[in-house]
């Protein structure tokens, strides 16, 4: 999936993946897509909940070799 920006949050523990995601989202425009890579297991449920509460759309998630990939469209 084509993303306008990619955030590498691998190796970071909660709350840093979301702290960095929030910051990165401010740097893209509404309708653009941010790709996030994280290894923290809690990131999945927290990013899902955060995207929902912030009015963003979680387009897709994937897991490969213990890395979680998320694509979020800014709302």
């Amino acid at each position, binding site marked *: 999936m084509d993303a306008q920006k990619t955030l590498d949050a691998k190796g970071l523990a909660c709350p840093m993946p979301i*702290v960095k995601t929030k910051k990165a989202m401010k740097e893209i425009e509404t309708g653009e897509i941010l790709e996030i890579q994280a290894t923290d297991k809690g990131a999945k449920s*927290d990013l899902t909940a955060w995207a929902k509460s912030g009015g963003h759309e979680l387009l897709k998630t994937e897991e490969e070799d213990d890395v979680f990939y998320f694509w979020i469209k800014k709302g």
Partner: protein
Amino acid sequence: MSLNKMHASEVAAKIINKNDLFILDVRNEDAYADWKIDGESVTSMNVPYFDLIDGVEDILEKLPKDKEILVVCAKEGSSIFVGEELVEAGVQNVSYLPGGMKAWSEYLEPVKVSDLPGGALYQFVRIGKGCLSYMVESNGEAAVIDANRMIENYTSFAENKGLTIKATFDTHLHADHISGGKDLADQMGGTYYLPEEDAGEVTFDYTPLKEGDVFSIGDVKLEPVYSPGHTIGSTSFIIQDQFLLTGDILFVQSIGRPDLAGKAEDWVTDLRTTLYDRYKEMAGELTVLPAHFSKVEELGENGLVSAQLNELYRVNDGLNVEKEEDFRKMVTENLPPQPNAYQEIRETNMGKISPDEETQREMEVGPNRCAVN
């Protein structure tokens, strides 16, 4: 002013002693709705940490001014983050829970049930998850029943008292938590017992637990009683003709559910027979000691969970369903959700899979849900 730590043991003490505690739980809303720290003296509020990253101003006036505030999250990172924000904003008396809900899930509080000839009986209350395990000790010997996977709790307790753990017993194949029975027995050079009827798919060595065997731990007598229904192998223990360890068959405010191995319809008759015939024939003065509690209100003095058998026949709704048909409906329909990862937990307890410790922790997150409420 700095952020304090309040360990799981201190949180448990506050709940048992009914001291006021205000909890700011910063996990996401689903996690909070599913499972949280409960207590009669506990007030809690849920604001996900991701809503507090830019500041805590919005919630300041909702926080009590005169109470200790404990910030809690899944592990601890976010609670430290939010806790420090609160301290910076001038809030007094703020702590976080080191290890978060995972530490809470793993904390065991040992409570003395009673003296026994040459020793005593202890209940280990896993207060965050509602699991109860037991240690019988007499004249330097000990046995552990329904051990949790955090076996250092039992080994250090035994070591402090100079006890040798001779035997570990599981009353049944557990579906809500990972058993420490096998590991504990192996580590201490003891014998691990499990009811044979539950062990059909077990891949490691165990010794069958059978009614008719009598175990002596020092001067104390343990008698297994076959009592199926939660599982087909469920076995209770009568200790010294005074205590009835019911496993997941009978709880203080509820009864066991027969469905966690997918056999609700088959096992409901066994459950009925155990509760309405087998236990009923026993002495009413027996003190019931279950393997779970579901509500903190069940914690009595010092945190002990127990009740007299004849009292339960008076007050426990699950023991007072006259018609078999109504009973069948109650225990097979409208059941609460199953425990988190219960299939994987059963497979772990059979030795079929061996997840690493972190995965085992994740699997056990949440309440036990072994009862029909």
